């Protein structure tokens, strides 16, 4: 695992002809990446330093967009909007990551180790994807009649006499946002973890139990480390999606919970592109740092 980086592959040093062919083969994808990913990204970075007025962007160089984003953040009394928004986004990212990880791991574990036949495994796996057959917005909106003030949950509880007044925090609250996120994105955890678990050599588990390990010890010392790649990949999916999301937070939070995505969206619709670009650059930097930290934990390229 932690051996020194292997010396460059022999192919590239001894066969220059093949190396050129390899470059050629990589060119189309690289070109697409440069044209549709790197160039736009550079443009965003450039625009974030431009000035703007009501209706147009003014080319130039100013850091005023960045200053206005962090305006008031030095004040110790009242937290500034940007900080508050990032904190709330981090909170959701962490909660959703934790819950989807626990659920995703459990479901994958069950599918990989407790379902014996390959047919049943496939069938159950497809079952997990059923929620994805409808659109993401519809899946979110369908929570409303369930959790609303006059929704099913409240009516049932009232009918049973468990509560006297409808519970208000079921909908348009942090609770409903987290619930919707978990509902939407657990699948992104299940797929990579399940994939890693299926590649674990079953004889290792037998060896563990032969050596007298309990089920928990096997889980913790054998299965979890070997599923690490899947866990990290799933975490990257979930965290990056939640960090940039504004639709789910908007719909489920009653538009009352801030998110960076929402701020960027409002700014673009008011033609404040440089300000939006500056926000996007900051968001991108933070997400990249998180991903960088996660990839320190596992060398994904090697494990795949």
């Amino acid at each position, binding site marked *: 695992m932690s051996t020194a980086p292997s010396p460059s592959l022999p192919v590239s040093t001894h066969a220059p002809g093949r190396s050129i062919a390899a470059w050629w083969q990589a060119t189309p994808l690289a070109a697409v990446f440069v044209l549709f990913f790197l160039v736009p990204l550079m443009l965003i970075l450039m625009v974030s330093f431009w000035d703007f007025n*009501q*209706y*147009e962007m003014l080319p130039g160089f100013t850091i005023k967009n960045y200053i*206005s984003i962090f305006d008031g953040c030095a004040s110790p009394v009242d937290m500034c*909007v940007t900080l*508050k*928004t990032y904190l*709330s986004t981090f909170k959701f990212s962490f909660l959703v990551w934790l819950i989807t990880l626990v659920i995703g791991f459990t479901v994958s574990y069950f599918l990989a180790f407790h379902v014996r036949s390959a047919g049943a495994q496939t069938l159950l796996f497809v079952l997990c994807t059923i929620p994805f057959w409808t659109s993401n917005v519809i899946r979110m909106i369908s929570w*409303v*009649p369930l959790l*609303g*003030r*006059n929704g099913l949950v409240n009516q049932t509880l009232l009918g049973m006499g468990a509560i006297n007044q409808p519970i*208000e925090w079921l*909908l*348009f609250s942090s609770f409903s946002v987290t619930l919707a996120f978990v509902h939407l994105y657990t699948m992104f955890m299940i797929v990579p973890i399940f994939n890693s678990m299926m590649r674990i050599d079953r004889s290792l588990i037998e060896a563990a139990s032969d050596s007298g390990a309990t089920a928990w010890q096997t889980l913790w010392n054998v299965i979890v480390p070997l599923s690490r790649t899947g866990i990290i990949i799933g975490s990257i999916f979930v965290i990056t999606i939640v960090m940039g999301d504004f639709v789910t937070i*908007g719909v489920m939070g*009653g*538009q*009352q*919970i*801030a998110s960076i995505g*929402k*701020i960027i969206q*409002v*700014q*673009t*619709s*008011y*033609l*404040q592109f440089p*300000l939006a670009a500056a926000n996007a650059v900051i968001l991108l930097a933070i997400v990249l740092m998180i991903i960088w930290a996660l990839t320190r934990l596992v060398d994904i390229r090697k494990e795949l």
Partner: protein
Amino acid sequence: MSDSLKDITIGTTGVQRRSVLKGTAGILATGMFPAVHAQEKIVLRYLGTAVNQDKAIGEKFEKDTGIKIQYVAVTTDDVTKRAVTAPNSFDLIDTEYFSLKNIVPTGNLKGIDTKRIKNADKITSLFTTGMVAGKAVGDQGTAPKKVIYLEGEKSKVFAKSPTQYMSLIPTVYNADTLGIRPDLIKRPINSWAELLNPEFKGKAAILNIPSIGIMDAAMVVEAMGIYKYPDKGNMTKKEIDLTIKTLIEAKKAGQFRSLWKDFNESVNLMASGEVVIQSMWSPAVTAVRTKGIACNFQPLKEGYRAWAAGFGLPATLSGKKLDGAYEFINWFLDGWAGAYLNRQGYYSAVLDTAKSKMEAYEWAYWMEGKPATQDIKSPTGDVLAKAGQIRDGGSYEARMGGIACWNAVMDENNYMVQKWNEFVAA
């Protein structure tokens, strides 16, 4: 098809080519290739919000003139964004007057020559002079009379007095107010101040489109007697701070159940009973009612917040498409479309022509504020009001005469948006 034609014509004599062409003409004449015909037809790309883009209007126009309308539906803010950033992506724009302050300085719109508009002099005086039935109405904010005239066909500035060139030809307009659920509130509501009344804690909503939401908030602040704005449509930084502070305090106290951005969201909030009082748009109230749920578009003593939309032409439009666009605008003002809009609860730009296309009892209900003598139906056939009912807000004069302010873009727009984001984050 085209490939095989080419194969035949290449390297053949003129006589053969002519016979091939004849044969093709024969096929075309039989009507077997409608797609080829369609290419000669003018297609106008109509950019606007979905609320105004009615399928029936496009179909009727195509039947009358043979010109096809292709709807491009985006949100209010995106209409402005496209007009500024992609002015060649449409042939006709339907946008609100307040966004002109952002669009006209870019030079992306062409002044509309009123000499080519048959009913131009019949456009209601609300737009040209700001008067209803000889009485001036509120002009705080971006009132249409301030931005309707341009100095020339290619002008980036608004004219102070009437000229031959209009920036937008009005299509629909209305005066907005609070929507309420009378069955759940059970008492009369007559002031904007009720939106922040603690009695409706957790049951109120306001719309999350900053430039419109702030106007509703300003109406509330004024009604509560906290402050009187010299011009709600153009606040100073201090006034913006005060307005947002009031909103934040209410939000922290749990006043708002939700904010909404989309027409359908407001309908759902109201219909499900999550919210009993909120800023609302007229067709949304109609939509709640067609579900059989009581909902009033409540007239308030402080007056209404008005809005108006109109047709504009992109600066680069020319030739047949330009003629087609003028034809569409003329057709639109000619009555059929006006009557159609009036039956939805909007108001049309030229009232006389619309009147001629409506039944007398419809006109009496929608425009004169008289009790319905028979059931009032929407253009799609839903019953909107039973015989004997009166329209909320009464007659055209009572309603439009009660305008207090207009949707606006402020000079301090950037600051306002920043503060609004603060409110959402609070």
